[in-house]
């Protein structure tokens, strides 16, 4: 079984704990796919400048502030819990998704604080991380998700 991309990145930067480092190194030695990915990570660390450098942090902050102002409109936050519930329901079941969100504030501001640790306990770090990313993408960042309950 392949290490996930986060583990490969951590391995690439030499930050894995020794027992895991040893098993990942052993796997990578015989896996062309992981070697390809490590090659990509190595290329990312190349010192030559990229063809077109990214915009500065100021441009990013402008984008984030605009997104924040759009996403914190009252009706948008009020629907946030419903969107998160709708996004989780296909994976956890409607009842489980509803239960998971019971302790979340009405405006949903603490949704990940409440939900992420529980998902990690029940699903494991990798699956929980991917599911949380899916929720963020579909229910928080891209808010065109239709609420389906």
């Amino acid at each position, binding site marked *: 079984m392949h290490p996930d991309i986060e583990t490969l990145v951590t391995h690439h930067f030499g930050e894995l704990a020794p027992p895991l480092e040893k098993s990942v190194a052993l796997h990578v030695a015989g896996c062309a796919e992981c070697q390809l990915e490590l090659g990509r990570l190595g290329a*990312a660390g190349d010192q030559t400048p990229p063809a077109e450098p990214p915009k500065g942090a100021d441009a990013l902050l402008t984008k984030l502030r605009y*997104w924040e102002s759009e996403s914190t409109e009252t009706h948008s936050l009020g629907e946030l819990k419903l969107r998160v519930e709708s996004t989780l329901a296909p994976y956890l079941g409607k009842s489980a998704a509803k239960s998971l969100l019971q302790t979340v504030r009405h405006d949903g*501001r603490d949704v990940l604080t409440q939900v992420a640790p529980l998902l990690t306990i029940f699903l494991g770090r990798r699956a929980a991380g991917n599911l949380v990313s899916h929720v963020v993408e579909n229910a928080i*960042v891209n808010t065109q998700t239709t609420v389906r309950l």
Partner: protein
Amino acid sequence: MTDTPDGSNPGTVPGAELEREVAGYYEAYAVQLLRYAETHTRDLDLGKDAVQEVFLRYFAERRFGNRIENPRAWLYRVLHNHLLDRLSRAAMKCEVSADGTERMADLQAGAEMRMEQRQTAREIEARLTPRELACLRLRVEGLSYQEIADRLGVRIGTVGALLPRVYTKLREGVNEGAFFTESTAGALFFLLGRGQPYAS
């Protein structure tokens, strides 16, 4: 953006503090992440958009209270998955990059040649399945078998089986006289630039 610490919800990060956090990681990692994106796609705009999207998602995830243990690894994971998703959908929809379309215009020479190229492209498209056509397009763009497999979300063995089938079908077409051989290369460029049957 106002700095509004929420004392009743210690999980979320105050606005200004979060901005400093995100800006710090952006300054530290944006160039590397963009280079990483460039190993997946030659489309520079796609790469830059993807990097921006990843930092927006980081901001959103932290804004709504998630703790991220290893931000650098997290950024790479989300970028990796986002790119594969975008590229896979683009391959299926046979999206055109503006650069490819402009290149194609340079290749067209003469009305008769253009007609032959269109006809050959139609013939090629009719003989191949959608998956075979997607594979051919990516191969003509210069991607390796592994890169094609990543884009289409299939195993490398599947690509290894598909492409020889494509080549066999193309050879059969040439032998049957269905293709104007001199215009086959031009036809392939048509297929690169147009993702659907041609309107003449």
